[in-house]
Every structure is written in C-alpha cells, then in structure tokens.
C-alpha cells in the first residue's frame, strides 16, 4: 500500500509518501506526477514515512528528476535509513538532491 499526499504552494509541490513504493504501487505515483507537474518549479518528496522502495520506485523518482531538470528543481527530504541505503548502492544519492 502507498499513500500519496500532495501539498501545492506557489509553484512548489510537496509529495509525502507513506508505505511501500514497489512494482505494484509505483504506477499510481507515476500517474499522479503526470497529472500534477504543470506549472511546478520545485518538487519536494517527503520520504519520512516511506518504508520500502524497489527498483520500480527508483524508476519513477528518476523519471521525476529528469522531468524537473527541465522544469526547475527536485529535492528529496527526510530519508530514513533503509531507503537511504538503497539510494547509496544504486548511486541515486548522486543523482538526487537529498536533504
């Protein structure tokens, strides 16, 4: 299960993810991003409550990063240990802006 909570403010869209971002749930996030990036110049991911991320989830983050490279910037905040480790082994900590 994945809960996607969006907050938009002055061109900044914050997406807080809660639960598991895996092969089953990633398509929903991808769809959500497709529908919400119009006019967004900063995309912030709040991953404090993200328990799990697999390659399917990373794929969506990479898509978002590529998109935001064109539109403005993307930040990933409040990354917990398990997710942080996955970012590290996959080199995502160099791709993403992690705060």
């Amino acid at each position, binding site marked *: 299960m994945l809960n996607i909570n969006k907050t938009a403010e002055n061109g900044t869209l914050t997406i807080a993810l809660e639960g598991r971002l*895996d092969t089953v749930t990633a398509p929903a996030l991808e769809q959500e991003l497709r529908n919400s990036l119009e006019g967004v110049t900063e995309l912030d991911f709040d991953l404090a409550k993200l328990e*799990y991320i697999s*390659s399917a989830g990373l*794929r969506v983050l*990479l898509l978002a990063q590529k998109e935001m490279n064109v539109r403005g910037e993307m930040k990933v905040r409040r990354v917990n240990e398990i997710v942080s480790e996955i970012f590290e082994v996959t080199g995502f900590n160099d791709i993403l802006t992690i705060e």
Partner: protein
Amino acid sequence: MTSAQNTEPAAIRLSGRIDSNNAAQTEQDIRAQLAAAGSPDRAVFDAAGLEYISSAGLRVILRIRKDVPELKIINVNPEVYEILDMTGFTEMMTVEKAYRTVSVEGCEVIGEGFNGKVYRIDKDNVVKTYKNAGALAGIMHEREVARLALILGVPTAISYDIVRVGDSYGSVFELLNATSFSKILATQPERYDFCVREYVKMLKKIHSITVPAGKLPRIKEHELRSVRRIKGLIPDVLWDKLFRLTEDVPESDHMVHGDFHTKNIVVADGEVLLIDMDTLSVGHPIFELVHMYNAYVGFSEYDPEIVLNFQGYGAATARRFWHDSLAAYLGTDDEAVIKSVEEKVRVISYANLLDWSSRHSAPSDPATAPTQALWKRELIALLERVDTLRFDPPCDVSAPAELTLPATVDNLPRVTDFISGRLSAAGVRPKFVTQLELAAEEIFVNIANYAYTPYTGNATVRVAFTGPAESPDSAEITFIDSGKPYDPLKKDDPDVTLSAGEREIGGLGIFMAKKVTDDIRYEYVSGQNILTLIKQVR
C-alpha cells in the same frame, strides 16, 4: 487391470525374435509375468536381447499397452530401434536405446550396501551397480527422485548415464574426490564435530522442505506395513498399542530421506552432498530418526561387529554419533528430553528391525535368534511405558515452507508477505527482511514479466535457512518457474555513476538484488529456472 496398491513398474525381458511364429506365445508369457507382478499399470520392457520384431510382435505390444498404460521399452538395439521409429512407436511410448557397457573389473570398490556395490571407474566418476532383478526400475526411480530433490533444494548427485554392467545395470555419477562421512569418522576422528554439525544441518534442511503432493511415497504407510507384518510376534494387546501409536503420528508433507546415515553423506569437492535417494519419502521426522537409530545402534545392538563392518567405525563411535546428532537436531542438551525422544524412536525401530529380520531369515535361524529375542524384549518393555510417539520436531513440519502461485505482478504482495513472514518468524532482523524482500521483488517481477509471456504460468517461492532454527546463519530464497530459460545474472550491471540525464530508465532491479544479497545462484534443470538468493542473516 489396474492396481492402486502396486505402483512399482514391472520389468519384463524381451529376447530373440518376435514374429508371427511366436507372437501369441510371447503375449501369453508377458501377461503371466504382469499378473505375477501384481498387474501394475506401469511396465518396462527390457529389449537388450531382442534381435527382431515383426508387425505381429508390434501388435502384441499394442494390446499389452491397453492394460498397462505406462509402457516403456528400453535397451533397444539400433536395428529394432529403427523398426520402432519407422512404425511410430517411438512417439507413442518411451523407447530408449541400448546402454553402453562398462566393465568394473579391477575397479576400486568404494561402497557397498544391501542392493549393490559402488565402484570408482576413473578419477571423477563412480558407477553404482545393483544386484537385484528389478535394477533398471530402481535406477529410474532413484534418478527421478534425485532430480526432484535437487529441484527442491537438496544438494545431491544425479546420475548422468545408465550403463550395463555384466548382466545388470549401473548408474554413473560424477563425484569429484568424494569421501563419505563414514570414512571421515573412521580415519579422521578429529573431524568428528564437523561431521555432526554438517550431518544435522543437512537433516534439518531436508526436513524443512515441503514436497508437492503425490511426488513421493508416504513413509508412515511403509512403517505401518512393517507393524502389520509383525503381528503375532509380540502379545496382541501390545501389538494393538504399537499400531495405534504409529497411526497417531501426525501426517506431514515434509521430506525425509529414509536412510540417513553417514555412508550416504559425502563431501565431494568441498561440498556436502546427500546421496542414495531411492528411499526418499514424505512424513514426520520420527520415521527418519527410526532408520538413523537402526543404522547406528539397532542393527548392531546384539553384535557390535555389524556396525564396524558396515560403517567402518566401532559401536562406541556409532552410539555417540547417534546421541550427539539427535541432541543437535533437537537443539537441546537436556538428557531427559533426548532420552524421551529416543524411546519413542526405538518403539518403531524395533518393530522395523523385527520385520526386517523375519523377512530375511528363517524363524528359528540360530544366527539371528538371539538378536531377535533382544529386539522383542526391548520392544515389549518400551510398549509398556511409552504412551505417545508425538514430540515437537525442530522444524515446523506443518507450516508450508513454500508458496506456489500464478506469476503475475498483482501477486507480488502475497510473495513479499510470505517471505517477510517466514524471515520474521525465524528472528531475522527487519533491515535484512527488507533487503531480501527487495531482492525477491526484482526476481519475482522478472518472472511475472518475462518467463511465460504472452501466457501466465506458476512460480514457486521457497524460504529455507541454514544454522540453528531459532537463530539461522543464512537465509535462502528460491524461485522456480517453468518458463523460458533465462539467467538474469548474465545481464550487465548498469553504470551507477552516471547522472540523471545519462541514466537509462530501468535495468536496476537485478543489480539491486545482487547488492543486497551475498550470493545469487541460477540454474536451469529439468525445464525449470531455479534462482536462489542467499544472504547471511546473523
């Protein structure tokens, strides 16, 4: 003409010429042999001596096949094979060409059991010969169960060839530098602890494996037959109790080897393997312990020389090895607990031994009479004080250790739940559970997306552990599918140093799986992709 009781295939020899002159007589002979074998629904025609078969002979085979649906012709010489091929018989039934002949004259005998000898034919290969008449059926059965065991995760040797040895058959195994635990115990007593540890590890491993229904015989039925046959040897009231106690042992679909002693565990090229798979069954571990007790103690209880001749080490070592293995298997050093389980085991052991000796010797044979008297006395004494054969085996024999389901992405949560449930129950810490879930997701999704496309097929997921049950050393998660052969490990790792702009979308999955595990093994065996994730979890 079927019999539910008799599942052993009958072996029937065909020889000379079968043509219109003798076809009717041949048919009569074959039918008589089938009837004598209990009218099985499987039969093997051994055509080693068959020189020619005419259409009259072929019609005999067709008529027999109506009554024996599973018919197989083996040892077919090239001329006869051509006839069978031309007439379409090779498509209707299994037809196997003649086997190559191997001579074992002057070869080193490296093992000997009740059913035959094992010879080393060259540096890397051994041939296991069988002296009984139904050798071929036995060889086929053993090869079939060894394959099944390998697929289910048991390290074993599978014969890669069947050969003729004299007027019987042998199966050829590749066993590099194989040494049995019996030999190690006899010649390198300093490795005793190693043997106990690896022996118990293997024992727990096979007992934790769930076997799909109908693939292997139920050992409890085998033991109940033994018990039935010794009716009359002990007082009726005690026999009734023996039967009731045996019947009360819980059913189980977990694997047991059935002849798990130190001659059947070998170290080959540094790897510990379980061999001699012909008795592989399913059932409660107590029946495994019964045959272990007999091998180490029961058979030689009256005459200690027996174990020395059989295993190569003395009765004291055998008894100590039995005790220490049982203690390690049960995970206790509480002698009262060990003794209580041992007494339950011995109840069936003596029933089994009495049955065995009454079938292999005359009732009043002076050589076996004292042994039989001892077993009978022990059995009677035990039946007077043992009131249940139930005990808690160290491996959970009821919970399924595997999950089979359609390989679709929708089923991913069921797979990850199953895996995390098994891992958490074994006390694996959350971080490792998540990492293994991650690797498992990549593998399962790969199967779901590619193995059967454009169709859907099943995948089986199995979770096994090595080391103590309450705190395992490592976890092994195995995925099996019958889809297209595909080794995901062959794929190149992605370049993880590239920037977002340069990075390709996807291709990370297997790389991540490799990163969060210690080893991933892939093999393609008998039409199945078998991929195993291995991770130290201590």
